[in-house]
């Protein structure tokens, strides 16, 4: 009962807040949010919703291969509403599973970047001096090596160090690690800036006096301050991560094609783009574009909404 009223109170306040108001007043944002929600929900529920399980080779049959989408062609099969690819995989189910994988990879990558960036930003801002200079210099260098190069590098190293045997199993970590590693800088800079402002405030000094770890105190005070900007960066990075994963797949360091991500699906489809079997490329392409577009629109809106100065 109490929890319920607390929740409703919170909901009420949320509904009343400026952020919610700015959300409601932008139809594009609402559309983006609905699209994002739908895509994410369908993707994560794909094991329940998808008509087929494209990642399970035992369910695939080459005799189902290259069926066109039902609505387009009389040759279509209602079992495969968006057609099948040359392995007999249902395109619709592949998209659902692939989106799930892409989202998982991108979310994980963004999480890696966020944790790394926030940690380094805290350390850099707190200790200052040489540590700060070093970390910020590394950040500069890091920015010269975009995700693609980093991924090729890491992939190369991992292939070399870990025996080739297990490569596919760790491919996903390579991609996550590479993308995560190349995104940390913006988080670090944001947090560092905030820490530098907070560092000299009285409560930090006070904390030191009463024997609390100032770093801990600062984490508690700084993190809420940077939630907004970090959230914005994370949203925008999410879109970037999805695209980067797709591009890596094109360059041959992506996820294995037996369990294709959305990007891998497009890469595979890219090869048959001119063959007339357009549905293999077009549907995953539309899904990817819609997802990234929606996420970015949300990020844009969030940035404007959370930055009261710009309102």
């Amino acid at each position: 009962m109490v929890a319920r009223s607390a929740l409703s109170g919170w909901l009420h306040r949320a509904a009343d807040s400026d952020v919610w108001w700015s959300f409601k007043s932008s139809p594009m944002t609402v559309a983006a949010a609905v699209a994002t929600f739908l895509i994410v929900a369908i993707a994560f529920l794909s094991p329940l919703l998808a008509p087929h399980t494209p990642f399970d080779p035992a369910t695939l049959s080459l005799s189902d291969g290259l069926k066109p989408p039902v609505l387009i062609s009389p040759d279509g099969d209602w079992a495969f509403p968006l057609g099948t690819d040359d392995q007999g995989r249902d395109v619709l189910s592949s998209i659902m599973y692939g989106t799930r994988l892409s989202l998982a990879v991108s979310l994980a990558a963004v999480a890696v970047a966020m944790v790394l960036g926030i940690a380094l930003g805290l350390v850099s801002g707190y200790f200052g001096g040489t540590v700060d200079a070093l970390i910020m210099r590394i950040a500069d260098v890091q920015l010269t090596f975009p995700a693609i190069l980093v991924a090729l590098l890491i992939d190369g190293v991992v292939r070399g160090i870990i025996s080739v045997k297990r490569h596919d199993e760790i491919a996903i970590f390579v991609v996550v690690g590479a993308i995560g590693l190349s995104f940390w800088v913006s988080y670090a800079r944001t947090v560092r800036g905030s820490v530098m402002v907070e560092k000299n405030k009285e409560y930090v000094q006070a904390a030191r006096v009463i024997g609390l770890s100032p770093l801990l105190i600062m984490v508690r005070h700084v993190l809420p301050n940077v939630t907004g900007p970090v959230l914005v960066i994370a949203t925008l990075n999410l879109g970037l991560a999805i695209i980067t994963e797709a591009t890596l797949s094109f360059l041959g360091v992506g996820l294995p094609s037996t369990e294709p991500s959305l990007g891998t699906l497009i890469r595979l489809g890219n090869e048959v783009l001119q063959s007339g079997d357009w549905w293999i490329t077009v549907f995953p392409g539309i899904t990817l574009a819609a997802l990234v577009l929606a996420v970015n629109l949300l990020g844009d809106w969030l940035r404007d909404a959370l930055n009261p100065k710009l309102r």
Partner: protein
Amino acid sequence: MNFSFRHSLALTAIVCAGLSTATAVEAKTFKWANSGDVSSMDPYARQETFLLTFNSNIYEPLIRRDKDLKLEPALATKWGQTDPTTWFFDIRPGVKFHDGTPFTADDVVFSLNRANGPGSNMGSNFVSVKEIKKAGDLRVEVTTKYPDPLLADKWAAIGMMSKAWAEKNNALNSADMTKNEENFATRNAMGTGPFILKERKAGEKTILVNNPNWWDKPTHNLTEVIFTPVANPATRVAALKAGDIDMTYEVPPADTETLKKDANVKVLEGPETRVVFLGFDQERPELLESNVKGKNPFKDKKVREAIHRSIDVDAIKRTVMRGQSFPTTLMVAPGINGYMKDLDKRPALLKPEEAKKMLADAGYPNGFETGMDCPNDRYVNDEKICQAVVAMLAKIGVKVNLRAQTRNLYFAKILRKADLKPGETSFYMLGWSPAQTYDVHNVFEALIQTPNGATKKGQFNAGGYSNPAIDKLADAMEQETDKAKRDAMIKEATKLYVDDFAYIPLHQQAVVWAARKNIDLVQLADNSFPLRFVQVK
């Protein structure tokens, strides 16, 4: 008119720009593309079909292959054996190198020794050779350690270089990677062939021009050939459709149908001599990547049979290969000496229950799990074929963990090691063509005979299949000169490996070439593309 290609590239570019406008009416420029570049202009740099045939436009062999891959005289007018261990080659008189110097027996001796020398990748064609010597201005004699009836076939891929030119430019040997020095022959060329190298930009473009002083009557009408590597297949197809190139080969199967519909493009298809097959680790007592411990299921012929007969090569042909393959049961393709047509009959496909029962009889009622290795950029749709195989085997309870990777990583993993240890694989894909000899013995020797460090047999038998009866037959056929007897041996050995389900031959991939409508060309079964058969209308 004499082209010298050694002056600066800039100058040549300008001269030729001028030339091509001046003679615009007759100029027949032929532009073509392939997925990768020729790795070197040195004809001995790499023993691979693409490099050998590309460079054969500049460097001609003593004996060349005609449109049907039969040997015909080139720089040698006559050749043969004076006794079982002595070969002779009579040099064609009056042939001149591109720089106008005459081609002599000295050049032949120099070239053959260079091909067998340090830095060269052609050494395997000289295993039997004892000595190469000049026997008069127009004759070269070769003695071998043992009778080698296939010497002429092997050497049909070895182009002849100019000794004087190599000496002058310090290119006596092929590029030696251990020294940080570049080799002049890597990006320059001096041969006798129908085309002269005009411009070489590795990875960008290579331009050849017609050799007006060629000894043979040209069957082409090209004045200039521009070759560009275009890695992305979609771009290649688009470029052909847009008319930016006149020809490309190894067209992706998926694009074959649309290209056929394009009024400006024609598609040539034919089987390639290479057979793509799957192999098993039959050597280790326990598979590297499997849930079966203590034994190796692939040592059991019943298991191999169940798997062999569960792979539907016709389904693969229909969807994955889009019709661009020629299923086979043998390890050699038609057109190769020793292909046994009456043995090329695939055993009937098993229903999943039948295959499961067969596995159960072999002691695997619940199937088993195994790793599989596959290249993803070597054969046509290699990775997709493997995926299809994974799906087919999943239906009979064999769970296959597929690992597809780029070719050099792939080969590093699955091929036998330098000490002849078996490749690190349980189940793999490989393609093989006896491209030097066009004879089945090469297949037995490399793939089917028991690996043996001393005799160098079975070097590419990655899974270590071993059948003493075949070993014996293969050794015998190597030196047998009586065709009937030899054919009988081949037949017997072929039957043995087929019945053993030693490998799972899948198909010959189709050689799909596509060209603009105004191009006439001849498609060869070994996927080589000599420019001397090309006509631009």
